[in-house]
């Protein structure tokens, strides 16, 4: 007769014809159809609530007039997909410039932000002069924010109003990303760095040749956070930019989709597909870059964020 819990459970499971699953702890009860169906319902419902709106938007942007009219404005699966809406959008110089602005602030901003964050995080992750006071300077920013009006006045004082730099510079450092980065650097064995130093490497060389290659995962994650932040930033543009030629995509999205301003004049295009699919096409243009990068970086989340966030 089976005596231990393990033996009893596995005997019971074998008798029910259940196969061995290495992920299932031996002490766990056999799967219960009741709980399983509740879980499946919750998980399925949440997944649908995320997938459906995105699918709806993409499909409607691709649908042709006939189907759109027949379906009353919304299409879940385009039967005759056309790229008319996208053609209209991309033939508009206005929209094209907006994409350029967004791409520029994302690329330059992410690069600058990573540069500042990496150098600062590395320097404060070692026992060096002024390391601790500088660290405290950063951590204080987590507790308090300077406020909207003083920031606005500062940007104005610096003469950055109505330039792309007002969209880039205020976002080039985030204390949270710094903390993630720094705790990752602190986990790099000191021996490795000391050995390089004894071999005569300078601090810059150690950072470039030893620390950076070891930190690809965290750089990918933090870089993604920054890039998404720049691509998504809308409020800074609303605050600091008056010049329409410097509008980023998010501001266009807000004006034409959320506020529902008429598009035809602003886009400067004569013939337009139904406004519904134009709006959707703008949504997709704002959404697509994130959908494209996300799968590649998503695998780093566990490694990068969790190790960083928990220790920080």
């Amino acid at each position, binding site marked *: 007769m089976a005596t231990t819990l393990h033996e009893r459970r596995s005997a019971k499971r074998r008798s029910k014809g259940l196969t061995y699953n290495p992920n299932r702890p031996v002490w766990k009860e056999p799967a219960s159809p009741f709980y399983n169906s509740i879980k499946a319902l919750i998980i399925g419902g949440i997944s649908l609530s995320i997938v459906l709106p995105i699918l709806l938007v993409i499909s409607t942007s691709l649908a042709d007039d006939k189907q759109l009219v027949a379906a009353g404005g919304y299409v879940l699966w385009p039967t005759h997909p056309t790229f008319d809406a996208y053609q209209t959008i991309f033939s508009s110089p206005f929209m094209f410039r907006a994409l350029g602005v967004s791409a520029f602030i994302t690329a330059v901003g992410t690069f600058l932000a990573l540069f500042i964050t990496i150098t600062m995080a590395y320097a404060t992750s070692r026992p060096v002069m002024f390391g601790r006071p500088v660290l405290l300077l950063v951590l204080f920013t987590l507790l308090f*924010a300077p406020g909207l009006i003083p920031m606005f006045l500062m940007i104005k004082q610096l003469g950055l109003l109505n330039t792309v730099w007002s969209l880039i510079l205020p976002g080039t450092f985030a204390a949270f990303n710094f903390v993630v980065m720094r705790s990752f650097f602190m986990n790099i064995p000191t021996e490795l760095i000391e050995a390089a130093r004894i071999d005569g490497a*300078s601090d810059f060389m150690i950072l470039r040749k030893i620390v950076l290659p070891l930190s690809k995962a965290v750089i990918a994650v933090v870089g993604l956070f920054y890039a998404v932040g720049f691509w998504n930033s809308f409020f800074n543009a609303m605050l600091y930019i008056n010049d329409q030629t410097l509008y980023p995509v998010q501001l266009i999205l807000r004006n034409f989709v959320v506020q529902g301003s008429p598009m035809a004049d602003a886009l400067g295009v004569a013939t337009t597909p139904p406004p519904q699919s134009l709006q959707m096409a703008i949504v997709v243009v704002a959404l697509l870059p*994130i959908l494209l990068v996300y799968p590649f970086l998503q695998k780093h989340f566990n490694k990068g964020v969790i190790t960083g966030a928990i220790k920080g």
Partner: protein
Amino acid sequence: MSQTQQESAGQLVAAADRPMAGAASKGPRRKKPAKAAVTADGHQVRKLSWKTRLRRDRQMLLMMIPGVLFLALFFYIPILGNVIAFQDYQPFLGITGSDWVGLQNFVDLYFDPDFWGAFKNTIVLAVWQLVLFFPVPLGLALIVDSLISTKVRRWFQSLVYLPHFLSWVLVIALFQQVLGGAGLVNNTLRDMGMGAIPFMTNPDTFPLLATVQLVWKDAGWAMIIFLASLAAIDGSLYEAAAADGAGRWRRMWHVTLPGLRSIIVLLLILRIGDILSVGFEQFLLQHDAVGPGAAEVLDTFTYFAGVVGGGWSMGAAAGLAKGVVGALLIFAANKVAHKMGEPGIFQKKVG
């Protein structure tokens, strides 16, 4: 000995000293700064003078410069800019030319019904978020953690993280396409002969809508930290509990939740410290559709009073009051956490 040889020798000594210098700074605090420090294994090392350290660390100090410059320009100097809250700030006179009015702006705020309206909305939304948003990630994490199939788990995780990376503009655009007046749901309702429901524009149900939007966008991402701490719970505890006859609910009550206690307290503190900033873009974007009666929060009040209305000092006063109260709330909540015997956020020295 030539100059260069001396230099390289000095660098070698400095390099050898470094781990010990590190150990000394991490160790228990010495009573008096002594010339000679003693390392753990009893060696006496020369305490480096600041000049040597400056030389030794010059590259590291160089690396700190861009960050410090950023902090100065976009954090610390703007903080000083808050002085305009105590002025009658005129843009063309500047901070140096404007008149000082003491606390007059705060008094004005106190008698401004719009400010108190924004304050009330902020608190209402914060309570909704605390009740509806806060428990969702925890529940989600428990469900995901109980999934046996790694495949389902991975798929679901990557799917629920996604909305966090969408901008608020995009989220609200998506909500409009589904729930808006001409959106999918209302279109279907009209086709079925029923009246449309104003999900997106009804001020009475706005707090609920805003919380649902927040849950949709961020609950999945907020789950990540719970998942990490769930993974850190010792599996043998579960096994022991199961051997003692605890079923799945008792195991959750006696093993899982105690294991999550400190992280729950930590997140609660952070939430309480943030209670006055319920979100900015989300409300600014829906300000027109719902009306200021329900969608005006402290942040949007600051924006409309200051930047749009030109009441710079008034806006700065509102922002400053909000920031100071928020910081005080964090300190208070942290204190309470210590009383409960939890580490809280900043009793532990970072680093």
